[in-house]
């Protein structure tokens, strides 16, 4: 089993590509840079496919397949290996990361073609692939944390890619700082895991966490604490309330970055981590409740903001936050498999939406404001049709991938709490509305741009091919779950079941009730579809049928409209409550008192004392030999008398 034995080769390939382009790329031509970057990801994808092939041939007792390559840290009782692991969950993540990543690399070679930072871009993008693969392949929490921090770094670098733009560097900094809060929670959680279990390996921590007694909701035990700390990390990375603020700003980065990092892969790392740690979460019901509530609220909250955004990428950014909320809702209600399912389908359709949006922006010569688009359907047909497929998928149109994953989540949520279900359903309607609003504003209606200034053109093949491939995935990515509709097996859940075996109790009860009341299920499966349809009709009415109505509505409902278009003024609230006090403290206390007073004072004080004393003692060096002799004699006398006195 060659590749399964040499698992490290998968993350190493993109790292080699990043290093080669980063170090030598300056002297290479654009085509060499492209081939290095693309071949490294292509090989990584092929290696991942080979791993999957070999993995499927393993017998069940060999799973999870863990390979330890060397001891990374060994200190006292603490030991962390550079160990990689493959199980069903890893396989899915591996395919999503390398597959979608590969497509987006191809797309980028077209999208970034005329950018002066071409080499730098691919170097960062390959580096991101490396860290993301470390994250999903890691066999212990510490190595996972390495990948976790690494993708954060690459996210920062790529958000601030256009570093001459002040807003881009600000957005990069914001992403980095907000993620620090989350990562602080994560590392505390990791430390607490080590303290509790004496190890950080998934293979020893998770089974033991699964056998620990569940902590009742009112009781604040160690598992609840660990789960909450890990969730803080997940909320930071996956942009959940209240740490979501960095993701919309992250759209300052190039569009392929938004697609790869801020839609398909990195932001889902939080969901992956929670699912990976599901054994801990399951025994901490209070934390589960919080995860479900935060996820559901985030989904709803972000969707409402997305309703009124005018920047095409901002709509998609809030949509991403909202969809991530769905995934956490799934985790929170114990449907980890559904969460990962939605993660996968979301990677397809949201990656596609971003890439298509990039294609639109490309066609419009850099314009991102949807109010200045319109009527593009005929001009860029491939982009339109692929984006239309993705919109149908995210809106949950029957048969498309989003339909299966979203319905599954809502179905599971309904069994836990009708309130969560209702809110999720409402969000599904809102999602459909804002996505069709985006589609109608961009591709339908009158053209609202100046044809003489903007030369609208379809994107090159290198960009269209990934769009088409992703469109196929966005349509068909959910069919693995399709047999469930007529009472068959959900192949996706079936595949994941061994990993989530400790969650089998919840899953079992869920399937039981699903099978028991199949009529209700059929009816309720219809509910999200109806919600989506209503959203579509509303969008059609407002933006196709009578395009003046939206303005009238926003004028007559100016207060709520302002609240939404101002994004609930959360940024302003954070600025007033956290940022400005911090800046004030930093400036007036840390800078002027601690830095200038204490630190500079201590350093300058030492210098001052030594200079003054040196100045005084300098006079002892008279240059007169006899005075030196006198000092020696005096010293000898003092020394001798002290000795004599001590002897007595």
């Amino acid at each position, binding site marked *: 089993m060659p590749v399964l034995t040499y698992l490290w080769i998968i993350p190493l390939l993109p790292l080699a590509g990043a290093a080669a382009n980063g170090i030598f790329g300056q002297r290479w031509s654009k085509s060499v840079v492209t081939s290095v970057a693309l071949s490294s990801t292509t090989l990584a994808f092929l290696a991942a496919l080979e791993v999957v092939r070999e993995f499927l041939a393993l017998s069940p007792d060999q799973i999870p397949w863990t390979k330890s390559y060397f001891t990374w840290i060994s200190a006292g009782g603490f030991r962390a290996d550079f160990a990689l692991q493959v199980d069903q969950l890893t396989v899915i993540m591996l395919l999503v990361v390398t597959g979608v990543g590969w497509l987006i690399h191809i797309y980028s070679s077209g999208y970034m073609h005329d950018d002066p930072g071409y080499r730098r871009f691919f170097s960062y993008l390959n580096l991101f692939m490396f860290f993301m693969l470390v994250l999903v392949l890691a066999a212990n929490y510490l190595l996972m944390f390495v990948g976790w921090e690494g993708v954060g770094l690459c996210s920062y670098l790529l958000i601030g890619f256009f570093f001459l733009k002040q807003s881009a560097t600000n957005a990069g900094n914001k992403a980095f700082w907000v993620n620090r809060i989350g990562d602080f929670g994560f590392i505390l959680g990791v430390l607490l895991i080590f303290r509790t279990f004496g190890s950080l390996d998934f293979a020893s921590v998770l089974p033991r966490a699964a056998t620990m007694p569940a902590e009742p909701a009112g009781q604040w035990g160690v598992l609840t604490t660990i789960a909450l700390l890990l969730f803080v990390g997940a909320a930071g990375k996956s942009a959940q309330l209240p740490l979501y603020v960095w993701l919309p700003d992250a759209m300052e980065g190039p569009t392929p970055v938004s697609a790869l990092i801020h839609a398909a892969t990195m932001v889902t790392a939080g969901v992956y981590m929670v699912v990976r740690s599901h054994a801990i979460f399951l025994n901490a019901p209070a934390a589960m409740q919080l995860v479900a509530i935060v996820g559901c609220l985030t989904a709803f909250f972000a969707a409402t903001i997305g309703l009124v955004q005018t920047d095409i990428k901002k709509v998609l950014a809030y949509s991403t936050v909202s969809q991530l909320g769905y995934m956490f809702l799934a985790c929170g209600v114990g449907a980890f498999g559904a969460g990962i399912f939605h993660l996968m389908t979301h990677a397809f359709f949201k990656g596609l939406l971003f890439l298509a949006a990039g294609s639109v922006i490309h066609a419009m010569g850099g314009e991102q404001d949807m109010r200045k688009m319109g009527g593009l359907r005929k001009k860029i047909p491939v982009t339109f049709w692929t984006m239309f497929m993705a919109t149908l998928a995210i809106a949950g149109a029957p048969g498309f991938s989003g339909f299966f994953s979203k319905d599954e989540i809502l179905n599971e949520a309904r069994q836990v709490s009708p309130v969560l279900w209702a809110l999720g359903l409402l969000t599904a309607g809102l999602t459909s509305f804002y996505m069709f609003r985006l589609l109608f504003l961009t591709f339908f209606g009158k053209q609202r741009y100046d044809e003489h200034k903007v030369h609208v053109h379809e994107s090159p093949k290198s960009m269209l091919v990934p769009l088409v491939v992703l469109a196929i995935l966005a349509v068909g990515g959910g069919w693995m779950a399709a047999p469930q509709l007529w009472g068959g097996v959900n192949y996706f859940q079936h595949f994941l079941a061994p990993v989530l075996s400790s969650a089998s109790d919840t899953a079992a009860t869920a399937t039981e009730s699903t099978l028991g009341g199949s009529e209700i299920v059929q009816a309720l499966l219809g509910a999200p579809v109806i919600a989506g349809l209503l959203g579509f009709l509303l969008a059609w009415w407002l933006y196709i049928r009578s395009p003046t109505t939206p303005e009238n509505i926003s004028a007559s409902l100016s207060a709520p409209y302002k609240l939404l278009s101002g994004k609930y003024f959360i940024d302003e609230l954070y600025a007033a409550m956290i940022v400005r006090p911090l800046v004030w403290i930093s400036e007036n206390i840390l800078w002027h008192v601690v830095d200038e007073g204490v630190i500079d004072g201590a350093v300058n004080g030492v210098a001052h004392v030594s200079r003054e004393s040196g100045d005084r003692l300098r006079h002892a060096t008279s*240059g*007169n*030999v*006899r005075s030196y002799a006198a000092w020696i004699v005096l010293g000898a006398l003092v020394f001798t008398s002290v000795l004599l006195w001590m002897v007595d």
Partner: protein
Amino acid sequence: MLEHAKTSIVLGLETPGGEVVPSSYYLVLSAVLFGLGVIAFVFKRNILTIFMSIELMLNAVNLAFVTFSRALGQLQGQVFVFFVIVVAAAEAAVGLAIVILIHRNRGTLNVERVDSLKD
């Protein structure tokens, strides 16, 4: 051994004539010579005189060494004396050369005026 040494010091050294001169006499003489050397070193201004006072101090120490060597019946003290004599000879050679050079360059042997070291 230590007991014997103590008594020897207290008893002193026997001269060939059979008289016993107490060790303390030699030591006091050594201290007096050393003190004179120190005083001369500190208060005299002529480099040659200072040089001679150094020799005086060295020989005062030699005397103390020899005294102890004899009193304790051990040879190390005398070995040290030879070392000191050798070093003193070398020092005299180098030192006198320096004195001559100073006299040539400055036309004086007054140490008060040879104080350029502090600059």
